[in-house]
């Protein structure tokens, strides 16, 4: 939920200042965990291609993915929104759930394995490239230091 962290003076609007304040607020909220979770990661599925230049956001996305990667396959409280016949409907849902459990557990646990492997692969690729870039940057600095001044 968005809460106001800054005051905007509407006299003589300066959108660059407003945007800077928005970005500061977002950074603070991300740090506090207000913008974490599977839901947020899902919201970016069509926006990923536009984030190539934003390294910090990739880190945030990977963090969200880590939270979302494993489907909760445990038993959960079965409820019914409709008031009429609610106890009966809950009972029925519980029966269906217990009958299907042997199958869905197998299916979802395999899905969790696949998700976990994909996440590990993405993390490994990210780690390797970061290391490679770091090494190359260090090499550039070293080579540049050997250049004659001017």
């Amino acid at each position, binding site marked *: *939920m968005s809460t106001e962290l800054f005051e905007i003076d509407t006299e003589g609007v300066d959108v660059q200042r407003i945007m800077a304040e928005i970005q500061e607020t977002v950074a603070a909220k991300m740090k506090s965990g207000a913008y974490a979770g599977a839901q947020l990661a899902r919201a970016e599925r069509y*926006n990923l291609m536009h984030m190539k230049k934003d390294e910090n956001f990739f880190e945030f996305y990977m963090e969200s993915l880590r939270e979302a990667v494993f489907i909760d396959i445990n038993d959960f409280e079965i409820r019914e929104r409709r008031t009429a016949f609610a106890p009966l409907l809950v009972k029925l849902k519980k029966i269906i759930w217990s009958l299907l459990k042997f199958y869905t557990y197998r299916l979802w646990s395999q899905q969790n394995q696949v998700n976990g492997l994909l996440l590990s692969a993405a993390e490994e690729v990210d780690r390797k490239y970061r290391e490679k870039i770091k090494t190359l940057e260090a090499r550039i600095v070293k080579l540049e230091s050997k250049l004659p001044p001017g």
Partner: protein
Amino acid sequence: MSTPPRIAFVSPRFSEGPTVGGAETLLRQLAERLVSKGWQVDYLTTCARNHFTWENEVPPGHTSIAGITVHYFPVDSGRDLNTFITIQNRISRSMELTRDEELSWHHNNVNSQALYHYLKTEGHRYDRIVMGPYLFALVYFASQIHPDKTILLPCLHDESFAYLKTVREMFLNVKGWIFNSDPERNLAQQLYGLDLAKAHVVGMGLNGFDTNPKGFRQRHHLTTPYILYSGRREPMKGTPILLDYLDIFRERTGLNIKLVLTGSGTYDPPTRLAPHILDLGFVTEQEKHDAMAGAIAFCHPSVNESFSIVILESWLADTPVLVHGAGDVMPDHCRKSNGGLWFRNYPEFEEALSLLLGKPSLREAMGKAGKDYVQHHYSWPSVESRLLEALR
């Protein structure tokens, strides 16, 4: 008495009735302004209306529309769609292509031999030939016929197509360029190293209009705040981003904000959001302007805009805009006008929209700043003088 200058516009489609698109609208508007200045204006286009099927729907021939002589030519049959799509997919993934492969892509794109033949035989009668947008083979091949009098109006975006060797050749082969904005011109300069003396930023003029936001709300039984998007609904325009973001926004904030859509194209909204979308499809200009005036903000989630007429219209309706920040053009309009905010990811979208929802005085001030910007930079007299300079 001297003969009035004669000019041809060349574009794959002519903006009329259900045939809409920013580039087509822009070219037609510029053509109409030249008619009003006494120029003889021809518009060479294809018989197609639909930019997905490119089916010949309009009969070939010529007709006069708003003082413009519009010549319709049939789109060639026999496109090898498999080859076209295969190469296009490779371009989209920024894969390296040979020049022959690029040419094969152009040959299997939208072409009209009849139009090329007309330009070859009649082109000498025109003083200037303005053509666009850049990524259609029709423009690529037509630009080679009379390059010495061809002005390209590319509507260029920073996308993989802009990096093709043949596109670069086309840019460097013509007499000059008309761009819609400074960021578009800067992009072309960066990609192709253009001679800036021949590059003109013109844009499109917009006239003010009256609006009735209350009437719009009443007609559509809207009792809650809404954001608006007008235009084509497709992934290239960022529609799925807007749908996902608004769905999450509603859930996270608990605010009942609706989405009003006008325009064409199909989309697949999240189930929870679907009941909160009012899709009006094609509407009249007046209805669109009323919708703009009643909105909390006009939201444009596309990163591929070279001008964006709709955000300027939204400012004329006193409504601020919320645009995707990954593009160059729309955030540039926002910075220069102080009329809009931008977002690069969901958290920024949530903060910006929350701010606009919670601050009516800010919305009002931003809408006014945007309107001042449009009236100053995009009034027809200032656009006309830039256009005439570009055609000299």
